[in-house]
């Protein structure tokens, strides 16, 4: 067979225009939802459109959202970490423990982050080393890590953190712009870059879609997953520094239920729970939406649990609508 007889077909890069694809994307939908809630809030409460109010609002989500960022990568890679809140509690406890020995603020931050790293590495080692499903492993470690915090601290409290420590959770970079918000946005940019513009991020999608074939293509799946668990641990440590600083004290019961909220942000942000799809922009928008909903309703003194109905419905609706819409269009075409 000679090559002249073959007419090579030209393969275009893509069929649809990037812009129209972007307009139809999940992120657009989320942005519309966020704007709608924002407008609703401004009409519903006279106190909403106020720089300080908006600034206070961000505290409702920044710490959870900081955990949601690495969680998004982890879920894209087909894993999950339910132990993040427990890591946060343990790392806060050990920070408090270290403080008793007179460590200064920078050292305490290191302790918090390193404890997070160790916990993450422990999860990662169990998942990648023994090949256990992460949901199962982290159900176990969520009890273990928080349990360790209880063993260390019992019914006691660590407080009187050193001067300067309160800045992380209570400080403002400028005017109403809090340190937590700036840190979150910086991390969001960093994770966005990592996921969407680097080879690391690209490989993540492959791992999420088909880990076996990724491995057969030379991707070191175990190492990458291990790194992701460590990253999630580290970011839980960072969140721990923020929360501990914001509360000014540590008890082993802090951050109860953070894991499900962080996961809700990730899923609402359009990250496929089955792995292999999702974006950081979506997660950021989802975090913002959750902040807008919880704080906006809070201003109206709607009980938190009623807001959670709203968040739950939003989660289901925002995921159901595109599916139903596509189906509707398909039926119309026929």
């Amino acid at each position, binding site marked *: *067979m000679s090559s002249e*007889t*073959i007419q*090579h*077909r*030209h*393969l*275009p*890069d*893509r*069929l649809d225009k990037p812009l129209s694809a972007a307009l139809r994307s999940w992120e657009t939908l989320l942005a519309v939802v966020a704007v709608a809630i924002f407008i609703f809030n401004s009409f519903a409460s006279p106190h909403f459109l106020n720089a300080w109010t908006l600034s206070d609002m961000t505290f409702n989500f920044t710490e959870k959202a900081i955990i949601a960022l690495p969680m998004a990568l982890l879920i894209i890679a087909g894993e999950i970490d339910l132990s993040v809140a427990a890591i946060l509690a343990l790392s806060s406890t050990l920070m408090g423990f270290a403080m008793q020995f007179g460590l200064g603020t920078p050292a305490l931050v290191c302790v918090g982050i390193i404890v997070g790293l160790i916990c993450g590495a422990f999860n990662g080692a169990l998942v990648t080393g023994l090949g256990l499903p992460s949901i199962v492993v982290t159900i176990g470690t969520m009890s273990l890590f928080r349990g360790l915090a209880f063993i260390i601290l019992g019914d006691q409290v660590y407080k009187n953190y050193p001067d300067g420590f309160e800045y992380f959770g209570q400080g403002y970079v400028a005017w109403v712009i809090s340190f937590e918000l700036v840190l979150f946005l910086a991390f969001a940019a960093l994770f966005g870059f990592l996921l969407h*513009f*680097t*080879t*690391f*991020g*690209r*490989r993540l*999608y*492959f791992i999420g*879609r*088909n880990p*076996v*074939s*990724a*491995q*057969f*293509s*030379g*991707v*070191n799946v175990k190492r990458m997953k291990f790194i992701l668990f460590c990253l999630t641990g580290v970011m839980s440590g960072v969140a721990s520094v923020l929360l501990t600083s914001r509360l000014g004290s540590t008890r082993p019961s802090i951050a109860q239920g953070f894991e499900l909220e962080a996961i809700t942000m990730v899923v609402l942000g359009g990250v496929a729970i089955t792995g*292999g*799809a999702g974006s950081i922009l979506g997660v950021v928008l989802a975090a913002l939406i959750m902040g807008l909903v919880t704080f906006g309703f809070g201003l109206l003194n709607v009980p938190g649990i009623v807001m959670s109905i709203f968040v739950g419905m939003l989660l289901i609706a925002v995921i159901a609508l595109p599916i139903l819409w596509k189906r509707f269009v398909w039926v119309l075409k*026929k």
Partner: protein
Amino acid sequence: MAQASTISKSAPALTLSGISKSFPGVRALHQVNLSLYPGQVTALVGENGAGKSTLVKVLTGIYQPDEGAITLDGKRVTLSSAQTAFELGITAIHQETVLFDDLTVAENIWLGHAPRKRFGLIDWAAMNEKARAVLAQMHAAHIAPETRLRELSIANKHLVAVARALSIDSRVVVMDEPTAALSAKEINELYDLVALLKSQGKAILFISHKFDEIYKIADRYTVFRDGEQVGEGHLKDTAQNELVKLMVGRSVDKVFPKHHAKIGDVVLSVSGLSHPTEFENISFELHKGEILGFYGLVGAGRTEVMKALFGMTKPSAGTIAMDDRPLAITSAEDAINAGIVYVPEERGAQGLGTGLPIFMNVTLPSLKRTSKSNVLRLKNEFDLARRYTERLDLRASSLSQDVSTLSGGNQQKVVIAKWLAMSPKVIILDEPTKGIDIGSKAAVHEFMAQLVAEGMAVIMVSSEIPEVLGMADRVIVMREGLVTAGFENKNLQPETLVRAAAGIE
């Protein structure tokens, strides 16, 4: 022969007319017609992606056609679900093995129509008994109905799939590339089975890319091209090259192109490679510009050896050296860095990032080259992907198409393109043309010839003797985890290979 023609005049058991089926962006079937006659085997041929498997899914109620009519025994039917099709007596052995690893053999056969006791409860004893009977009828009594399917070899799993199709009194049996995963002995048993079904008056649709077997067992043929039916007739009136022409739109004369690469120095030398359970003491040398064939029956352990060379499993002993330097390969990454790449046997599960676009699949191992200090450069990626996919004549709508929507053969091309882009020193092709149409097969072989001409070394694992004889310079035969023979491919006879593979002296 007179008998055959009277049968063909008899009413068709099943008729499809004007069937169309589209997926977003792809027209898989367009106004196709097909008739299946009782007691006859109709072969369905066509290139990869011609729409054969799609038709099977329409026939078995898995897909609903966009338009067209299906008539069974003169009555119009709607196959609203797989269950309906099954109840109407249409059974299929699908291209992908679709069985349940964690259920028993008996359940795999009887799921959905299991024998019941009082209150509609499943009668396990009766189910096992009946399963035993069906398996015995197929000369597969060695498979115990109570074993978990997971414990069977791939060939035996396939027999279970066949047993399921036989477990009801079907009118129509569809087989989508049933022999692709079987070895010679099992293939012959399958042919006997087809003959048996034929004699029972069932209408059989047989899909295959192997022309010799089509001519051996089929009575009629239907050819698909790009989702359309382009011809049908009796096989005895039609020569093979006519069929190929119908299929491809041109003639393919050289499936096994002669290659005249200069065989050079040893690139890869393997000695004493062993694994605790899969293989032992594997030694061979691979030269520059050489195609080294690995022949054996399915399950001989060739894939495991290749996986060890590629760093996917850990050998317990032995050394691998490249260009006389020892290699420590502990991961696929190491192997790729050393210049060894592997086109795996199961392309869906092991070769593709399903759900991701073609270009990303192609560039995955080459990211280091297309990116700048780990930052992606999309333009480089598209260029690279286009270069290699077009060279392999990939059939796709764009480079951003999801690979899982490609046909089997085209998926294989994506996997090969991915590795060609790496310009490796040694390329291992494990069953490279399994399930690939004749045109693409020729293209793949042509490519292998080009590769060795460029100085690459190729290991080709194949269970098809014509392919081995047509392409390999040397052949190594494996049986039960051991190398049993090695041959120069000069006047090598098929029987020699078969004997060595089966262990007959």
